[in-house]
């Protein structure tokens, strides 16, 4: 019990001192902090919304620009992204990309996870490497909230959000993925720890 407490204190101490530098007041911090109300402190989402902290800088820039132009559909990001200049977007993206990516802890179904893993390895790993943890262009899909992934897949499949031709081929091309396949993929990405 006491040992646990000491470890917790120690861990807390480290977290505070190592993050102090990252959080020093700056114009970039000023621009980014305000997004945390929806995306979580340091961009680590506590539910539903996507985690942006620790995702690749190039991906964040790319998505913000697509929200801004309307190329990517959104409920809210399009309206917000329009307020920021390209320089501001680049600053925000660099800020978030330096934070730690925190994988969401969620319940998953082992059978679905196994099935999802198979599909992923076969069709997706090439671009979404390391079980969806990396891949600069495709963002980070491992450990995103299921609600977000579900909405995102729907947008891809209804052709509301554009995907690269090669990804479209894997999802909706020859041998298109079924609803159950998509479900399995979602559980697989959600199961990543």
């Amino acid at each position, binding site marked *: 019990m006491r040992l646990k407490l000491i470890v917790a204190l120690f861990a807390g101490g480290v977290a*505070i001192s190592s993050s102090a530098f990252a959080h020093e007041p700056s114009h970039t*911090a000023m621009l980014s902090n305000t997004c945390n109300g929806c995306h979580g402190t340091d961009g680590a989402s506590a539910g539903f919304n996507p985690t942006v902290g620790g995702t690749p800088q190039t991906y964040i820039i790319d998505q913000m620009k697509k929200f801004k132009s309307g190329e990517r559909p959104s409920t809210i990001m399009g309206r917000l992204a329009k307020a920021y200049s390209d320089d501001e977007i680049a600053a925000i993206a660099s800020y978030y990309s330096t934070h730690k990516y925190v994988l969401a802890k969620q319940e998953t179904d082992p059978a679905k996870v196994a099935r999802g893993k198979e599909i992923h390895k076969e069709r997706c790993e090439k671009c979404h490497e390391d079980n969806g943890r990396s891949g600069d262009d495709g963002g980070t899909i491992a450990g995103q909230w299921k609600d977000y992934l579900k909405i995102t897949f729907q947008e891809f499949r209804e052709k509301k959000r554009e995907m690269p031709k090669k990804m479209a081929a894997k999802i909706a091309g020859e041998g298109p993925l079924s609803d159950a396949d998509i479900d399995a993929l979602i559980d697989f990405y959600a199961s990543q720890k």
Partner: protein
Amino acid sequence: MSIDRRSFIKLLGASAGIGLAGVPMISVANEIMPKKGRRVVVIGGGYGGTIAAKYIRMSDPSIEVVLVEQNKDFVSCPFSNLVIAGLRDLKENTISYEKLTANHGIKLVHAEVTSIDVGAKKVVTSAGTISYDRAVLSPGISFRFDEIEGYDEKTTPEVIPHAWKAGPQTLLLRDQLRAMKDGGVVAMTVPQSPFRCPPGPYERISMIAHYLKHNKPNSKIVVWDANEKIASKEGLFKKGWAKHYGYDAKDASKGLIAYHSNSKIVKVDAKGKEIDNGVEALKADVINIIPPQKAGHIAFHAGVVGEDKKWCPVDQITFESKLAPGVHVIGDSCMAGPMPKSGYAANSQAKVCALNVVQLLNDKAPIDPSHVNVCYSYITDKEAVSVSAVYKVAEGKTISVPNSGGVSPDLSELEAVYAKGWIKNILTEMSS
């Protein structure tokens, strides 16, 4: 009565400040935690205060932060309209302070702040005084009950809930609706702007109508709005009410909602369950009066309320009071140009204020602010709408960034999902 007590303690605080120690009752104003290094005292552990405390500690851990909050837990107003409709448990709206204070080394004092001695830089609380280098005030709102004849500050809300501070009041309104017979009349009054949460009353109308539709379909909600029109997202609310609740702007007898603008309550008879707008009286089975509002009481005792005797004027870059140097005011109590009195606005202001309090304590120049506000409102259990804006400061004034923000194009099921993402994230931010 209570004002007398408060000003007495304020006097005591002031006298402690000018060094009249030794007066027998001075123990009331004892310094409870002697200050060593640099210290910020944050007053109010709600949407603004928790975030200000956290972001000061995150930005500069060498600054000590003391958070003073009168209640053990915090109950969120956002999403409390869903509780009233029976769609959410009030527990989901309740957060505690343990993790926040432990994770960030924030010192928490559970006490009521009764005044601030600006000259001596001391916060006077029911537990004693606390010295500060800078104070941040985020006390939310208090009510202008005196503008409604017959309204008794203590007894009226026990019969006619305002439910504009979440907690027992929320449950009282929910339970009154549950106890009402089918075919009953619910009356609701909306105060003149500005008030806490511009879309809040209209979300509440939607949620009550949703409850009636599914449980008491022969009932009606009659709304008296003191404003000339719906204060936020007018088009979307009217569209949603027409779509789901049979609302007809031209014929109030139709549907579940009868909405009347330019109708200001002037009188209430709590016993007779009757309200009066000077033209007509209305008897109802359940009444929800949202009283007109002003800054939290403590803002008045701290001398930071402006000439309008309602709200607190602040520097738009640092949120430092224009009236009391060293005291910053954020959230509902402050005036921040076009920013609404919302939880998200309080969250954004807290972060701007935190960073600039840190800058000031480190003798550095303040940083230009950047704020976001997004307010979601549920129309049914499955459809929501939102209003949004990004703000910055130009020539000392807060403005919304042109050609951005705005309202949802339509009612949206996706927004009803992502709104849950908002409440989950913002409450987690405040409590960890």
